């Protein structure tokens, strides 16, 4: 490259132009930049996405953000916290007690998978993981109900506390079902909506029952 050594561009000549590389350039740039950013930023970005989805669930308006950028971190956190809070209700023999940690986990995830399969088999247009994401996030009201129940049970476990727990759990059950229906109903064929909504309400009913029948030691 001996000839090139003489090539130089004087600084007052403006070199301009446009190099457009189709598709790849922006994401390449982002990849490099997210690799160099501090770990705190990475974690905070994911946490903010999860938090935004929590807000979407608590105020279910018709928005496609929950569906478009699905993630399973939120459902995992909710499932683990719900299963942890359902611990501690023991009985004389193992067979009569409440659900174990693994049982809650399996019920939530297996139930969500079965409902997703059901809605896809009935002709739904939503993708598998989007549906899992919505069903998992809509467990949030029931997790809040579990928290409230545990606090109420700390105060006492008589009839009054039971009525309070019943009202709270019933309200949260309705909220969960409505929220998930608001997100999922549009992707179903119109004459099969009830066939898809019913298993969802059965799923949340089972979780509500587990929360309501939780009796501490």
């Amino acid at each position, binding site marked *: 490259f001996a000839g090139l050594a003489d090539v130089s561009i004087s600084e007052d000549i403006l070199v301009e132009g446009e190099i457009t590389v189709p598709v790849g350039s922006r994401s390449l740039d982002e990849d490099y930049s997210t690799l160099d950013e501090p770990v705190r930023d990475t974690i905070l970005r994911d946490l903010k996405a999860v938090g935004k989805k929590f807000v979407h669930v608590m105020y279910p308006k018709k928005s496609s953000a929950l569906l478009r950028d699905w993630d399973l971190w939120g459902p995992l956190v909710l499932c683990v916290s719900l299963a942890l809070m359902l611990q501690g209700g023991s009985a004389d023999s193992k067979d*009569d007690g409440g659900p174990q940690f693994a049982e809650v986990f399996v019920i939530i995830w297996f139930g969500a998978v079965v409902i997703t399969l059901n809605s896809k088999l009935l002709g739904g247009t939503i993708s598998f993981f989007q549906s899992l994401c919505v069903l998992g996030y809509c467990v949030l009201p029931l997790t809040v109900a579990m928290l409230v129940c545990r606090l109420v049970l700390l105060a006492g476990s008589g009839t009054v506390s039971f009525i309070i727990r019943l009202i709270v759990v019933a309200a949260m059950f309705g909220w969960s079902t409505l929220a998930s229906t608001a997100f999922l109903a549009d992707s179903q064929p119109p004459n099969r909506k009830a*066939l898809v909504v019913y*298993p969802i309400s059965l799923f949340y009913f089972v979780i509500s029952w587990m929360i309501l029948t939780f009796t501490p030691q």
Partner: protein
Amino acid sequence: IASPVMYLLAEFDDAANLLAANPDATTISIDEPAEIPKNQHNRRQETVREEDDELLGTDDSDKTELLAGQKKSAPFWTFEYYQTFFDVDTYQVLDRIKGSVFPVPGKNFVRLYIRSNPDLYGPFWICATLVFTIAVSGNLSNFFIHLGKPTYRYVPEFRKVSIAATTIYAYAWLVPLALWGFLMWRNSKVMNIVSYSFLEIVCVYGYSLFVYIPTAILWIIPQKVVRWVLMIFSLCLSGSVLVMTFWPAVRDDNRRIALATVVTIILLHALLAVGCLAYFFDAPELDFPAPIIPTYNGTTGITKSH
């Protein structure tokens, strides 16, 4: 085999030529497109008796049978194959449930509701609902029975859910499998007019279990007489659906085998109901010192409470 098709095409050619030559000629059009195939390949229909038409439902069952055969054409490893088992609308599911709860005497459930389109949605979700209904109702009923006793402490009895699930799903899938195998075996020996596919049998069993759901909820009432009356009532309803479905399928067989089959179907159905009542619902009059796991032995439980 190309020759019948060629013959048919030649006929059309002739007809077209004739029509072209004489446009004003009167032509007769055949309204029933299924009539030609019916005469050609469905020999069984020639031996249909009068009462079978009544029992077997509407006359266009042949057409629907023809259509049903054309639907499931996707290979079994694709998702579309399984989608054909869920090809039902809300009103169809509701109709089938109504047909199982109000059995019309003389009308066959399969012919009337399912012949065109057996689905797996109904059986699966009815069984799931029944599992949770029995577990929840049993838990509630035990709570109300033992309420007020000083040594009683409420337990959620969560393990019973898995037992209920195993029992009910095993009943709803293994008994149809056995029945289907038995009917296929008898079909090879005796030419039966009516034969059902495995999915149709699963469908009938699944929808016939629906009437147990309100029964299980009403079993919360802690009165022995009420419970037994409810059980007999629901057994009659769902049993009649099963009997009216399967009697035409075994009727042509040896009399004793036909009767034995129908009696076995009813006995198994009754065993399921009685077993569930005995295991999940404590007897109201007996005084349990503490919540214990009752032994799963239906007959012992019943004789004890007598």
